[in-house]
């Protein structure tokens, strides 16, 4: 059954269905209950499931995330909402030292069916402390999985898959995407949670994006097509693990790779992707792997500066043209 849903509605639907199906699923976080969630993701659930399963918490990120870790140890399936990824820094101990480590350091004795939902990314003029990406921090933690849905359909699927998994999963939701709309088939069988998807087939170069940048990459590809450059666009859907086979198959076909990330360039997600593609696809590359990334600066409040600090569609188009080399440039 396919419906047009907003991204937040898709998440809400997914959470609702899982909570109805399994009594061990509960959600907690700041303003998730009576208020309905800062981005409405938990709207209506407090009335339906009650305060024990939709728990408004005090502003105590480390402890309420750790509460989720403790509950997961005894078989509950907590879905912790941290209001923004910037606040997840306060919960880093519970996520990195707790959730990611306990199953391993106990010698495989404990489940960790924990989902941590975190809105993040650069939204609209929220300034340096509310406009970080930070995905590379979680990517660098063995034992954590990181999913980055770009569409309402993926948001629906990946949240449901995350809740059903016994491993700890960070779901990065981009704040700009909450009010984007798309078709959601609630009955279709989802692809594996961390498999990448080719959003647009092409032959001249591969553009790899995730979350919001996957959408920007598709816009850029449409622009490039007008100039005769057929870009293949891969939406990673996941940053840990990364579906290298899908990436390598595409790059081995197009011989050029462009990575688009909103995270800061230095030691960001793109650095990992570029390094691995250089290792695995070196002999089929016609040009060095390139990145379009966020600038290595705290996000400025000023609107124009903020926009210039992260990849724009025009930046992706320009980088793709440059990557295609002088011949294509001349043709353009």
């Amino acid at each position, binding site marked *: 059954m396919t419906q047009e849903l907003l991204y937040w509605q898709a998440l809400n639907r997914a959470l609702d269905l899982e909570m109805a199906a399994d009594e061990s699923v509960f959600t907690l976080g700041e303003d998730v209950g009576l208020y309905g969630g800062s981005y409405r993701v938990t709207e209506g659930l407090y009335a339906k499931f009650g305060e024990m399963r939709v728990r408004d918490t005090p502003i105590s990120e480390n402890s309420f995330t750790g509460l989720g870790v*403790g509950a997961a140890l005894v078989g509950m399936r907590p879905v912790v909402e941290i209001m923004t990824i910037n606040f997840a820094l306060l919960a880093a101990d519970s996520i990195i030292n707790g959730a990611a480590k306990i199953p391993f350091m*106990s010698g495989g004795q404990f489940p960790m069916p924990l989902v941590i939902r975190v809105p993040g990314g650069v939204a609209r003029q929220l300034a340096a402390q509310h406009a970080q990406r930070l995905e590379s921090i979680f990517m660098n933690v063995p034992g954590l999985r990181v999913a980055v849905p770009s569409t309402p359909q993926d948001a629906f699927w990946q949240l449901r898959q995350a809740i059903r998994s016994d491993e700890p999963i960070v779901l990065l939701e981009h704040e700009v995407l909450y009010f984007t709309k798309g078709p959601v088939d609630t009955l279709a069988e989802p692809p594996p949670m961390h498999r990448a998807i080719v959003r647009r087939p092409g032959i001249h170069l591969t553009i790899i994006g995730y979350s919001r940048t996957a959408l920007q990459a598709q816009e850029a590809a449409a622009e490039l097509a007008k100039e005769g450059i057929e870009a293949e666009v891969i939406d990673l859907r996941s940053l840990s693990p990364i579906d290298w086979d899908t990436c390598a198959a595409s790059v081995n076909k197009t011989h050029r790779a462009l990575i688009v990330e909103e995270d800061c360039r230095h030691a960001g997600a793109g650095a990992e992707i570029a390094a691995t593609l250089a290792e695995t696809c070196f002999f089929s590359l016609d040009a060095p792997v390139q990145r379009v990334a966020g600038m290595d600066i705290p996000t400025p409040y000023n609107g124009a500066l903020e926009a210039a600090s992260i990849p724009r569609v025009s930046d992706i188009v320009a980088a793709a043209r440059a990557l295609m080399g002088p011949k294509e440039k001349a043709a353009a």
Partner: protein
Amino acid sequence: MERAMMHRLLRDMLLSRVFEERAAEEYGKGNIVGFLHLYPGEEAVAAGVINAAGPSDYIVSTYREHAHALVRGVPAREVMAELFGRATGMSGGMGGSMHMFDRDRRFMGGYGIVGETYPIAIGIGYAVALRSLPDTVICFFGDGAVNQGTFHESLNMAALWHLPVLFVCENNHYAIGTDIHRHSAVAEVYRRAAAYNIPAEKVDGMDVLKVHQATRHALDRIRRNGGPQFLEFETYRYRGHSMADPGTYRPAVEVKAYQAIDPVSIGAREIEYRYPSNAELAEVGPDNIARLTEHMIAAGHTEEAEIAQVKAEVQAVVEEAVQFSLASPQPTMEDVSRHLHCNRRNEILI
């Protein structure tokens, strides 16, 4: 108190003492590496508290948790093998001294970050409350952990939502090397619980009978009324914070004063690697083990010969644990992968 329980408390304290002294010895030999935080001096707390808990209660412990595991009933050989990093250890050799877990005994770890036990404990407590079960959660922490934000965050939530958690402060007066009067504006830890309306009590942590009784009553109150309780046990560790710490910041007179009320009345420093003789025990005065044995002898529950027998028995247990550990296999990289992916089940990720 029942005679059988007194015997159990005594044995647990002796086992804990002998185990830890042997661990120190094995550390010296290089069989145990890394950080090793020992428990001598504090045995009355582990024995008294954990013996008051039922088998379905949960224990959340710190990085000074070997004795907690032993008292909980984890075989000494599994605790020792974990210290040796062997595959037969209670965490498969992946955790070591600070990360001991035993799911079947509801021994929920072994946490190396100070103040990390509170959120874990309230999370387990939340699950218990959500499922309307009668279980309780015992959350251990030291006096050094009460200045972490999680202390206040978690006590607040535990009280707000009436979670069945017993907070147990093992106050040994030192945050590693910093005396409590130099790290806490309010040195009487139990008073802090009042900020969250959690009933709290300070108890002599060198007297195992008092520890046991206070814990039993606190757990009863949790089961009867719901909501958290808080106990502060004043105790003392005879060694430094870890094997890397000689503990020289503490005045000798203070160490001596506590040794005079010691659970096992360990003797002077030169005998620290062996179990003190009866004569040496008597020389330093009544300690927490001596206090119990004197009480038991006076009440006709035991006699010297029987105590000697228990000591011999726990020494044999510890010796066997060391031999078992030495003979145990080392874990492999395959084990690492298996433990890391222990929750993957049949899930296909890509």
